[in-house]
């Protein structure tokens, strides 16, 4: 028998609201299956089970807000299920309307059933405006008193990062890297490919962060408090969190699992997938809690440099400014090159500048060499 509990989806998360069960009592579930949707201040997250078995009973009903660690359901292993057979009759879960976390939260606040809202967007995505239009005739009683989804997400970000700035003794290292080889490789790689199969520079940055984290393993760790003392626990897997800005405002940083083992094409697919789902509001609990190091990248149209704040319990974060063509010295001559400013923020309780600088040098080594695998 195993307990399916309210997970912690961030270091500052204390409670979550069970929005709905996605499976029924009696269902056979496998590790990784999505069992429930939970609302947090960062949106509605799909929660997976980490055990296989049969759902014996639900302990918490949808709508209840419960602390992290609360048992939500009981799952029996196969043997238990045979001893205590449970009803199998159930309807298939309804298809979820496509909507961002902010839209879903707004719908809940206004008492609007998302499935009943007609999307104005041609791709069927329900927007906040669609929900508010649908709610106009309903006069939701709590809409006036609850903070907006944007406000709640901003508060959650502020709470997490205030704690990070208060508790983590940050230091920062900056390094300029010539992306000539990387961008030339991308041009060759993409030239004969359909747009859906192309790779962007962001995927190469994720690749470099992942492999540098594997090489400099002390930065691929989670900080834990053990007997009143802080302790950095090195992690076996490299799951790179990617900071994604949501179109309605706010930010999430879901993890790309085992990013150090993925080639460029697979990383690109993972990046597209996680970004699309972050904006559609269908991230999974493991993606929200598993990141071992995070990258924030300003892409093509941002400013030169971003100095990140380490996202606890991680111990390091990489900020990549926009790629810009600038003068650069190559073999004694000044040439125009696409350059990126990388800034590494590190928890000083874990290591120091000399060791941490290896991380950026490792990233440079990876980025000035054409990837061997597609």
């Amino acid at each position: 028998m195993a307990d399916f509990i309210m997970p912690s989806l961030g270091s500052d998360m204390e409670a979550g609201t069970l929005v709905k069960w996605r499976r029924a009592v009696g269902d056979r579930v496998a590790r990784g299956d999505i069992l429930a949707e939970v609302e947090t201040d960062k949106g509605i997250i799909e929660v997976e089970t980490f055990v296989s078995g049969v759902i014996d009973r639900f302990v918490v009903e949808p709508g209840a807000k419960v602390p992290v660690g609360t048992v939500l359901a009981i799952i029996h292993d196969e043997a238990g299920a045979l001893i205590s057979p449970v009803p199998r009759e159930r309807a298939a879960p309804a298809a979820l309307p496509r909507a961002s976390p902010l839209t879903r939260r707004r719908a809940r606040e206004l008492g609007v059933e998302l499935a009943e809202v007609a999307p104005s967007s041609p791709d069927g995505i329900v927007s906040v405006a669609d929900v508010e239009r649908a709610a106009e005739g309903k006069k939701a009683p709590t809409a006036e008193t609850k903070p907006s989804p944007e406000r709640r997400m901003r508060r959650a970000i502020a709470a997490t990062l205030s704690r990070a700035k208060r508790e983590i003794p940050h230091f920062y290292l900056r390094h300029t890297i010539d992306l000539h080889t990387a961008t030339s490789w991308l041009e060759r790689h993409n030239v004969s490919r359909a747009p859906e199969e192309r790779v962007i520079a962001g995927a190469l940055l994720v690749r470099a962060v992942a492999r540098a984290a594997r090489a400099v393993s002390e930065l691929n760790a989670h900080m834990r408090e053990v007997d009143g003392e802080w302790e950095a626990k090195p992690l076996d897997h490299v799951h790179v969190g990617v900071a994604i800005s949501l179109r309605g405002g706010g930010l999430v940083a879901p993890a790309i699992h085992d990013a150090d083992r993925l080639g460029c094409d697979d990383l690109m697919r993972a990046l597209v997938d996680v970004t699309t789902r972050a904006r559609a509001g269908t991230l999974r609990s493991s993606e929200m809690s598993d990141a071992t190091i995070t990258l924030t990248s300003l892409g093509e149209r941002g400013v030169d440099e971003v100095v990140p704040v380490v996202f606890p319990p991680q111990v390091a974060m990489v900020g990549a400014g926009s790629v810009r063509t600038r003068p650069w010295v190559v073999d004694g001559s000044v040439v125009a090159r696409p350059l990126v400013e990388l800034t590494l923020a590190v928890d000083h309780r874990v290591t120091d500048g000399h060791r941490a600088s290896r991380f950026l040098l490792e990233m440079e080594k990876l980025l000035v060499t054409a990837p061997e695998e597609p």
Partner: protein
Amino acid sequence: MNREQIRTQVLEQLAAVAPDADVQHLAVDADVREALDLDSLDFLRFVGALHKATGVSIPEAEYRTVCTVSGCVDYLAGHASA
């Protein structure tokens, strides 16, 4: 596909990438990446959606040409099969 049909396609695909934006009132010569706050992944999704909708695969070298509605319509009109 005539120019009006192409324009409709372009706006539909922009709306899909930026569902919160009012694409109908987008200036035809505005850089959509700036106007709609599209990052490189959004823009790639837009180009990919146009590829699926029109059959035209816009090369990376033409991204600067197709970053406005008018430029995009011109490009697609010149490359789409009748």
